[in-house]
Structures are given as structure tokens and as C-alpha cells.
């Protein structure tokens, strides 16, 4: 019984690692892989359903990759305060939380997190690694 549980857990961990690496590679090829926590599940679901028209470009995926990445995004989607009032809009920069967080700066390209968040591509958005260009 114990061995079976360990095996099941191991498989789950492997599946999670594979999904994470697929998410990072695919969602990070034209821009940084934006963290799943920044949008609620309905927004990710909508996005994955219309990848061939993704912010003006075709970002379509093979069905298997789309299913794996979609499930990963929904598993890690934002909940609570950060996505309150976000609805199913696909634009992270239009969520009330994002606007609040950035109300003291003027963003020239809200897609380019790395312009100020120097470790954004590693998923690190801490203020200590923030460098606002003058």
C-alpha cells in the first residue's frame, strides 16, 4: 500500500515537472512566461481556447501541449485578492491588482516585466530586485 502511494505521488510529481517545463518553454518563447497566479482560471481557459489569435499573433499549440499547459495554468491560477475583479480578461495589466501595484510608475510596455523586474524571467518579482530605469 505504501509503495503504491509513493509510486502515485512520484508520478504526480513527474507530471507536474513536465507540465511546468512545457509551460515555461511555450509561454516563454515570445515573452517571459507570465506566472499563472496573475490571472484567475477562467481567464486562462479563455486564453488557451483562442491561442491562434493571441494578442494579434498566432500562438497556437498542438492539442496535447495545449491540454497539458492549460491544466497547469488552471492548477496554479490566481485566487483571492490578487485576481479579485479580474473577470476573464486576458490582460494581466488590466487587473485591478496590477493597476494598484503599478500606480506610482508609468509603464511604456506593460508586457516587458524585465525592464524593471530584473529577475522576472525567473519568476522573481521582489522589490529588492526592482530597478526602475530613469
Amino acid at each position: 500500500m505504501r509503495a503504491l502511494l509513493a509510486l502515485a505521488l512520484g508520478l504526480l510529481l513527474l507530471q507536474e515537472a513536465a507540465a511546468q517545463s512545457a509551460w515555461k518553454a511555450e509561454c516563454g518563447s515570445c515573452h517571459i512566461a507570465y506566472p499563472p497566479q496573475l490571472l484567475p482560471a477562467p481567464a486562462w481557459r479563455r486564453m488557451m481556447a483562442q491561442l491562434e489569435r493571441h494578442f494579434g499573433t498566432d500562438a497556437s499549440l498542438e492539442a496535447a501541449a495545449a491540454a497539458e499547459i492549460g491544466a497547469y495554468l488552471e492548477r496554479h491560477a490566481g485566487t483571492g485578492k490578487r485576481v479579485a475583479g479580474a473577470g476573464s480578461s486576458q490582460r494581466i495589466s488590466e487587473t485591478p491588482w496590477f493597476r494598484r501595484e503599478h500606480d506610482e510608475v508609468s509603464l511604456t510596455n506593460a508586457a516587458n516585466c524585465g525592464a524593471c523586474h530584473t529577475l522576472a524571467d525567473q519568476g522573481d518579482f521582489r522589490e529588492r530586485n526592482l530597478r526602475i530605469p530613469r
Partner: protein
Amino acid sequence: MRTAKTLLAVLATAAFPALAQNAGFSAQRGERFFHSTHGNDWSCASCHTANPLGPGKHAKTGKPIEPLAPAANPRRFTDAAAVEKWFRRNCNDVLGRACTAQEKGDVTAYLGSLR
């Protein structure tokens, strides 16, 4: 997979331009195709720049793109699924339709001819 890899690796060899020509593909036609906007806003060069041996930059997000020509970037054209995926997406963005096999072959012949 190994066969595909070997075939695609031929792109970077000196024999490639002659092979492509024998197969009915034209590097000159591919070059014109690469730099044309095809009646829309973008060309291949909008992101990959006019010099595919150098790095490019995504026209919308600004994210750096590694060089496209195999002579400058040996990882290019080594994964058949990736090649198909990007032709599908980028032809749709640039031309508003899928590319023909002839067009894809011509562009590949052009990129493979660059040294």
C-alpha cells in the same frame, strides 16, 4: 527522430545549397519571400531582422530572438515539430494563411545558404 535530426543537420553543411536546388527550391526566391511584407504589415524580417545570421527581436514584445540561420545557430532546424509549429504560426501572422511547401522549402534554402 534520429533520421529527422540527421536530415535537418544537412542544412548547415556546404553541400546543402546544391541539394536544395536539385530538389526544386530556390534560395533567391526564399530571400525575396523573407523580406516581403506580402501586402500586410509584417515580413519575416520584422522580427528576424534583414540579417538572419544576427539576433532578432519580437516586433510586439521586444523579446530577443536567437539567430535564425543554421550557420549562426546550430540548434535551428534540428526539431521537425518546432519547425512546423513556427512556420504555421508565423506564416499565419505574416501572410494571413499557411505557407506552401514550395515557400517553406525556398525560405529554408535561403536560410541554409547563408554563411
